[in-house]
């Protein structure tokens, strides 16, 4: 497989893995809704990167998929920001740890 991918492919894979991890860590560590959301976007794009990388080996499908992912991510962003604004109206903050009406 490595052969099929070629060195750049492998590098791309590793980069995407690293990006994904960074995204995950960001999500886990940050408290600001916006930033957390951006980290998630980062993860999505990491996935896109590896899709592209694989499509070098397997053909076009991966790249098509990337477009879908981007579209969906856009939709998500729209909805997500809307939600964040909605809740901001109530709390005047976007600190995730402050939203604790629902628990236990």
């Amino acid at each position: 497989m490595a052969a099929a991918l070629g060195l750049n492919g492998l590098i791309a894979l590793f980069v995407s893995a690293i990006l994904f991890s960074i995204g995950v860590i960001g999500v886990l560590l940050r408290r600001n809704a916006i930033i957390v959301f951006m980290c998630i976007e980062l993860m999505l794009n990491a996935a896109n990167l590896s899709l592209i990388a694989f499509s070098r080996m397997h053909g076009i499908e991966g790249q098509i998929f990337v477009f879908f992912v981007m579209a969906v991510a856009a939709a998500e962003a729209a909805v997500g920001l809307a939600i964040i604004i909605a809740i901001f109206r109530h709390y005047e903050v976007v600190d995730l740890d402050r939203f604790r009406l629902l628990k236990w």
Partner: protein
Amino acid sequence: MNHWVALLPEVVLSLAAMFILMRDAFVRTDSGGPGGDGAGAGGEADGGGRMSVDCLVTLYSIAGAFVASLWLLDASAPPDAMIALDGFRVAADTILCGGALLVVSLSRDYLSREGLRSPEFHALILLALVGMMVLVAARDLILLFVGLELMSISVYVLTGFVRKNPRSSEASLKYFIVGAFASAFVVYGIALLYGATGTTRLATAAERIAAAPAGGDLLLVAGIGLLLIGFAFKIAAVPFHMWAPDAYDGAPTPVTSFMATGVKAAAFIALLRVLTVDLGGAAEIWKGAVWWLAILTMIVPNLVALSQQDVKRMLAYSSVAHAGYLLVGVVAASELGRSASIFYLAAYTVVTAGSFAIVFHVAGRGDRNQRVRDYRGLGWRRPVLGAALLVFLLSLAGFPPTAGFVGKLYLLRAAVDAGEIALAVTLVLTSLVAYYYYLRVVWKMYFEAAPDDAHTPPPPRPGFNLAIGTCVALILLGGLFPGRIIDRAREALADAPAPGMVVQAEEQPSP
């Protein structure tokens, strides 16, 4: 025949959604307008009025979609088609459309009472439903992902539908954050799977996996793992479940019920199909993980539910627990397990729709009375509601003669058949724990006297009663004469995957 026909149900629903949105945009449907009880028009006051056009359109379109998918039953698609045309899809559509129909028809009162805007609500329900149906019908990972996201995003919005209520917004935020997080995993998982198998077509992938000596390939393993995580989030399996109680709790109750029925069902059916059929060849990769998820998901929420004082939240936990029971059917990874899960899902969908409906009916305006102690004496003050809720609770508890019992037995058979005695025992013991919190509602309803200042819910409308009655009838029917349903489920699923694959899946020795 024209391949577009394969998407007929989804097309119907999408058009309906568009229509509703357009109509809302161009036709003025203010309070009292011809639009009927749309925007918080007087709530319960004129609630008894004509059914809103949106609602009608929604109901008819869902029904139409259902008919369409039935019509597609005798169509057939090449094994590597992007969208499935088989009994499995029909079965799934049946459950999803049925659930949606119940939810929509039951939620009318709630919308009018809480003054929610009807068009968006129904449009979003329809879009979510489209997503679900795509999700369960997808035979291609791309389509799968699109369906998943379409469903999720619509439901995020629905969860936060009551903008003026912080709980609702908070619920939707939590749901959204974790959900987006999860879908990132899904995408990455799909990417790796694609890398491992070189295709996004599930059927093709399945063949390749079955051909290759499974397990060794790190990409494959990681891909399956991440995909599994994504689905585990959707069906709220422990420990990916923590969003669920909050989201269910905060969301407007009809949405909760929609999440508990539709979303869970869709995600679960997709998981069932992808794991046990397409990835059946790699069963021993994921089996261990799913086994653990099942065990945890059966034990934890049942225990937590014991200490819940809020019925809605309690039901939320119980629905998480039911995901655990369903996972038993996945672990069984057999035709038996699949049909068992489908049957259980069907029963569960009906029960959940009904019970949440009763919950928000009893809760009254602003969902004030939905603590367990608000149910004191309900059974005597509203005998019909009480009896119905009793039936639902018994079915949830898995008590004869309800569909819930047959479903549990079905799952037990699957587990025993797969040699998973430990799972079977856990299943029954955890449902014993569950008895306690279901019974608690029962004894509040019947054994304890209502305080004098108790709020007695208004007598429900005929429509509501009809829907509830349907649920009860279905439950008892499924409990007393499940034979027909079972046969149907088995027929439907028999031809679900490419035959060769079935054999493959069946022949997997259980670890």
